[in-house]
């Protein structure tokens, strides 16, 4: 089965906010890079594209045929998606194991595991 893993950064430090990133030791920072690299090289993983900060998002709705755009993500910036990847796994246990290896999951964020549907 193919799963979409949505990475919610939550409070987890990323290099995008240097202050938060600096709260990690150098070894922890290296581990984050190494873990993401290892995940992207795991068989079955299709890495997602990099995403710019949630603040750069534009949210689009159509009402009565009129396109409405608002500044910012659909959910609050703190809850916005920070990244994603696709994973072909035998079953949910395989997807959960991979999700648990994503650094954001242990640093204050969370991973949403969504099964995909083949049409």
């Amino acid at each position, binding site marked *: 089965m193919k799963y979409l893993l949505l990475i919610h950064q939550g409070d987890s430090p990323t290099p995008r906010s240097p202050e938060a990133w600096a709260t990690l030791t150098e070894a922890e920072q290296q581990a984050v890079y190494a873990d993401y690299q290892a995940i992207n090289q795991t068989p079955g993983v299709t890495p997602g594209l990099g995403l710019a900060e949630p603040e750069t998002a534009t949210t689009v709705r159509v009402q009565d045929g009129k396109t409405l755009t608002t500044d910012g993500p659909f959910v609050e910036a703190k809850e916005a998606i920070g990244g994603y990847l696709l994973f072909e796994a*035998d*079953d*949910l*246990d395989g997807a*959960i*194991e991979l999700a648990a290896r994503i650094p954001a999951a242990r640093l204050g964020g969370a991973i949403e*595991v969504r*099964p995909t549907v083949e049409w």
Partner: protein
Amino acid sequence: MVDLDRVFRDQWGRVVAAMVGFLGDVDLAEEAAQEAFAIAAERWPRDGTPTHPGAWLVTTARNRAINRVRRDRTLAAKTRLLQAAETWEGDVEPTTFPDERLELIFMCCHPALALDAQVALTLRTLGGLTTGDIARAFLVPEPTMAQRLVRAKRKIQAAGIPFRVPRDHLLPDRLAAVLAVVYLIFNQGYGGRSELAEDAIRLGRALAELMPDEPEAHGLLALMLLLDARRAARFRDGELVLLADQDPALLDAAEIAEGRTALDRALALLGRGPYVLQAAIASLHADEPRDWAQIAGLYGELSRLTGSPVVELNRAIAVAEADGPEAGLRIVERLPLDEYHYLHATRGELLRRSGRTAEAREALLRALGLVHDPAERGVLERRLTELERTAPGA
């Protein structure tokens, strides 16, 4: 004359498990199992009971499912049954067909399902309870329970929750989840609905049999049996009877013996997990006179394992029995359980025994202010009256 209800209770879980393994779909599995039991109810009284009732039921359920899928191609497309049906040949070896109940229980108690859904699914698929039975046991309207089961089954299918015993590195956590579900079912029953306690014990027996090397599985079975043995002693004229006041003659000796056998097995496997420890404590409570020092020691071990202040409170009670009320009070005074009525009730009792009547009265009143259950209120009120009577000067 075969007791069909008994066969149903004994075989339902195995037949459903075999069908889920075969069909990959819980709804279809339940339907096929139901059909097989209906055919058995019609034929067995007439033609005699087959030598291997379980294998007969599985074979019949399988054949029914295959016929149904052959008639219904859309159904076939939804399951992996079609290929299986083409390759399926002949009868199952009656004595060797695999028991897949473990796969089923790990699927039903998967942590990706909500706890109430885990409980309902386990009772439905392994316990053979109807949706109505489960709804009544958990005081939920039947449509709500039906909805809960439908949603859980849909998630199993859509999210790919595996029908499999978890791999070794996942097993300890997953087994703990399964045991917690069974114990939750037991406690729902222990409060009064005795059929649920029986269902839980039956599930516990199956787990101990299916995982003979897991001490905690034997520990849970032992604990449930030793607690269930007190069923008749726990209530007198509809009122709750405290452990210390229970009549030993009302204990179920057969259940205690079976519980102790399971406990011995767990201890022989070097089990020292939370269920094994609780079962060991329950076993000591069935002795007269009680070995309070050993009970206190086991509570200490359980407390270190769980970090639970409620366990510490129980340890304090045992320590008070072994070393006197002041020793118990020293533990009670440092517990962060100010909103917990048992803390104040226990404190009141230990203060009374130390002769500190005024403080005891205050503690009991504090407990009374926190408790809502009428039976528990009754117990506290009786103790307050007792206190006034025996110490009129207070």
